[in-house]
């Protein structure tokens, strides 16, 4: 070997690794000495995207985000020396991405109806121009996170362009006008250099974005779902999980929350779920109107779809991609809601990769670091004081994370459920028994909980009217009492119950059927304002109190059970918001008259 050749050999070796092993989505390559953990690489001449997840000597274990059939030892691996990152900037909203931020609509136009391999497309459109409107001027001092200007990304989202974390100094220049995300929009002089700012930032997905301070959540994320808002509310910046067996309506609940939650930005991750469900979201969201603004819901939504048949490693990455995009919008001062459906598939992806790495398994074959990863993920939620200022003021943003869990056989002892319950504050327990009886949403009122209920109670009373919190608590107590009475009924029959107890059963049934039951597919019932929720509950409890007094006066429970007004109460949930108050007064009057009737 001549000297020249040797040098050349050495150089290629230091720049390009070589595959020695392929086992499904896991590839091992040698000659990777210069690379770090979680660096991105390109595998083989087909340039499949991968990420380093283990290093030993000069060998790297790589999880590959694309199908590896046809790849073998001897083929090259190209290191990038950069961690897996996402592109952040105008163009995120209304996009649909795969787990590693490839826009699926662009992939389709490049590669056709089926996803083929080695398609390299950037996350954000490079050609599209956005109108950048500065809100600071040259000469201003800016610090990391400061909003320097805005772009009207959609009719709902004003995209605030921020100084990236870690950069600060004096603005030398700032340029209003139509720019692409790669054009320089501002020039910054830091202590030792000048930096050209563009509208795009890159951020590694596995690293949380910095904030000034973390704060305790203090506002509810209103969802328009009665059982959630009234009984088990989640706070903006809080965490919630929805475990349940298949067929219990997890996905419908996630869709309902994505549609109606009063967040400013919604990020929906279909992680290892059904392809048709993502299509449903894709087709439906552009048509659905946001109840607050009247604009299509899609105009505030980012979708991430890594369906169950797409490569498993990209599924592992998808939740990180999503949460990073969520943090980015949070940093602008927005309230962001992230929905992950389902985190079990994400955990399974971890398990599969871990198995291929031949790591010592923990419970049920899941890796021992499962609980740690889950906790880290949910910890990225929160209400925060953002870095920097917007129009001279500090701002607060929040990122709410709601994950569904699909435990095998609906068994809550599943390691993923248990690890999740240890970190989340709200638990919506879905029961298949309720689903069979077509009680939707099938959230159990006996087993679910919200640790925010208490701290949010004063705010809820302010929003829905005084007494609302007390009503919610009373209704829950009635349902608890019903469960106890049911036991008695099962043993000795209904006839042995006294009038008061039978009334409890009737009222509980009314709370279940007329209040908690909510039809996601009915145009009116799908979304219930807090006011409407409060009024329905108020009416049911008025019936309860009125009926109790009537019973004390010696009225007959059989008559009270059959009062005609009860059907009107049952139909209140189908009333339009506009006619609600008038009808409430009418029903109120009828109720009083009918209760007096016989007495």
């Amino acid at each position, binding site marked *: 070997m001549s000297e020249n050749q040797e040098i050349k050999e050495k150089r290629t070796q230091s720049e390009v690794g070589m595959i*020695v*092993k*392929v*086992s*499904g989505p896991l590839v091992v390559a040698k000659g990777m000495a210069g690379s770090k953990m979680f660096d991105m690489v390109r595998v083989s001449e087909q340039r499949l995207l991968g990420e380093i997840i283990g290093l030993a000597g000069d060998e790297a274990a790589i999880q590959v985000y694309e*199908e590896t*059939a*046809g790849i*073998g*030892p*001897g083929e090259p691996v190209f290191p990038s020396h950069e961690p897996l990152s996402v592109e952040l900037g105008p163009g995120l909203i209304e996009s*649909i991405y795969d787990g590693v931020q490839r826009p*699926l609509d662009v992939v*389709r136009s490049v*590669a*056709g*109806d*089926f*996803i*083929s391999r080695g398609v390299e497309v950037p996350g954000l459109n490079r050609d599209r121009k956005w109108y950048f409107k500065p809100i600071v001027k040259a000469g201003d001092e800016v610090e990391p996170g400061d909003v320097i200007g805005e772009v009207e990304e959609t009719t709902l989202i004003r995209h605030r362009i921020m100084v990236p974390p870690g950069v600060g100094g004096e603005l030398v220049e700032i340029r209003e006008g139509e720019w692409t995300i790669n054009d320089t929009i501002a020039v910054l002089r830091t202590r030792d250099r000048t930096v050209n700012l563009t509208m795009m930032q890159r951020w590694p997905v596995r690293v949380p974005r910095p904030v000034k301070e973390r704060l305790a959540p203090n506002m509810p994320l209103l969802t328009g779902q009665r059982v959630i808002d009234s009984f088990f509310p989640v706070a903006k910046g809080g965490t919630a999980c929805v475990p349940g*067996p*298949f*067929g219990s309506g997890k996905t419908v609940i996630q869709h309902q929350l994505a549609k109606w939650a009063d967040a400013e930005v919604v990020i929906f991750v*279909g992680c*290892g779920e*059904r*392809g*048709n469900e*993502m*299509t*449903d979201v*894709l087709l439906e969201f552009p048509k659905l109107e946001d109840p607050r603004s009247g604009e299509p819901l899609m105009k505030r939504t980012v979708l991430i*779809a890594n*369906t*169950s*048949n*797409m490569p*498993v490693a990209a599924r592992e990455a998808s939740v990180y991609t999503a949460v990073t995009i969520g943090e980015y919008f949070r940093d602008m001062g927005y309230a962001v809601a992230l929905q992950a459906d389902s985190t079990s598939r994400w955990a*399974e*992806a971890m398990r*599969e990769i871990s*198995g291929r790495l031949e790591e010592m398994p923990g419970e049920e*074959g899941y890796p021992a670091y499962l609980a740690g990863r889950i906790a880290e993920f949910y910890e990225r939620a929160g209400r925060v004081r953002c870095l920097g200022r917007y129009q001279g003021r500090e701002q607060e943003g929040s990122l709410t994370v709601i994950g569904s869990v699909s435990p*095998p*056989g*609906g*068994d809550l002892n599943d390691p993923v459920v248990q690890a999740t319950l240890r970190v989340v504050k709200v638990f919506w327990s879905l029961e298949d028994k309720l689903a*069979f*009886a077509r009680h939707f949403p099938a959230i159990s009122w006996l087993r679910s909980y919200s640790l925010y209920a208490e701290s949010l109670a004063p705010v809820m009373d302010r929003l829905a009217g005084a007494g609302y919190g007390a009503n919610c608590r009373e209704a829950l107590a009635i349902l608890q009492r019903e469960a106890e009475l049911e036991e008695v*009924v*099962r043993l*000795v*029959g*209904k*006839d042995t119950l006294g009038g008061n107890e039978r009334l409890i059963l009737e009222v509980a049934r009314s709370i279940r*059927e007329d209040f908690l039951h909510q039809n996601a*597919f009915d145009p009116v019932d799908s979304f219930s304002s807090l006011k409407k929720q409060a009024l329905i509950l108020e009416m049911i409890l008025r019936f309860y109190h009125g009926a109790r007094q009537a019973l004390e006066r010696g009225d007959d429970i059989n008559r009270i059970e059959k009062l005609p007004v009860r*059907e009107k109460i*049952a139909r209140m949930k*189908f009333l339009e918001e506009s006619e609600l108050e008038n009808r409430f007064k009418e029903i109120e009057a009828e109720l009083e008259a009918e209760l007096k009737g016989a007495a």
Partner: protein
Amino acid sequence: MIKEYRSVSSVSGPLLVVEGVSGVKYAELVEIRLPSGERRRGQVLEVNRDRALVQVFEGTRGIDVPKAGVRFLGRGIELAVSEEMLGRVFDGLGAPRDGGPPIIPKQRLDINGAPINPCAREYPNEFIQTGISAIDGLNTLVRGQKLPIFSGTGLPHNRLAAQIARQAKVLGKEERFAVVFAAMGITFEEAQFFIDDFTRSGALSRTVLFLNLADEPAIERIATPRTALTCAEYLAFELGMHVLVILTDMTNYCEALREISAARKEVPGRRGYPGYLYTDLASIYERCGRIKDRTGSITMIPILTMPEDDKTHPIPDLTGYITEGQIILSRAMHLKNIAPPIDVLPSLSRLKDKGIGAGKTREDHADLFNQLYACYARGKEAEELQVILGEAALTELDRLYIDFARTFERRYIAQGEYENRSIETTLNLGWELLSVFPKSELKRVRPALLEKYYPK
């Protein structure tokens, strides 16, 4: 010239290890030649430096370590496809087994397919009338849906599948329709039942069968559903046909997968099934659907027998998480002579909401099925109470619900194997049965519809 290796170092279960190889690719097709001249096929499961791990579809029996010759063919497993496949019978890897000539391929397709881009999917919303009330009325099937039948040993799932294949149609349309049938590890008798039924109804000429029977190599079952789906994709997305794919029995498929996993000494998940069972099943089930701007569609009915009728067993459990609902057969109902014994309470079609209603079935369909479900569920609950407490403890209303539940099972569900009901008939029957209740009990129906359809 492809190199032949004679360096098999070990055989364990269905797996071979070949040493000293070079240029071998992951998932490559392998040909193994025995001294007797017999050829077997296999696939590379892992390649580590110069060692390749190969799974042998026909099993490793009779393989003599020093004498077996192994060739790596440089391509994945492919299926030769053409329209001529209709009416023919193939083995699990796509070779003819009906004595007919080989297929002259229009195309050769990798049997693993590629995932459909979610952006390219068309949402399934065309109602398929199966003529079976328990399905049409309560668990509506739509084109492009995957709706499995969860059954148990000895239950008539095959009859139900055959009835669906026989009666299924989309209202008011004349289109090209085909059935792709994949048998994995079922008995000759069961396979013959389907062939006879297809022959009688004249469907055989538009059916493609892929058979891997109980006495045939178990590992070939890993390829069988993929072969069948490759054929279905060709018929649907290239030739524009509406294809109904029946896969039976997925339990046998999963067992073959477990065998491979055990032989590889992988860390097992639940009940010894590999941790990637979900992903693997998804790579089969998710191949069904519709694609924008293409006429054809793939609708899938996988059949699986639940071990011990246990719905929480990993196979039905993971299937249920991927498919868009499930039809569950009940042993108790079968014993009561209700045919088909569809247990409607835990059964579900997730896509029904988009496939029913005005313009598709009828405007009252959604409210009606919610009401039927609720009433039937309440009737069943009351029936349980009755068993514990006796008749006397029930209220008049409870008794009404029990009566309803019984009539509902007898008239609505138990329609028999050869009755083909139109959707109108099914819906009207629903209202007729509900008319035993006063209007005030029917809370799940919107008032306007109640006025219009409640029998006078």
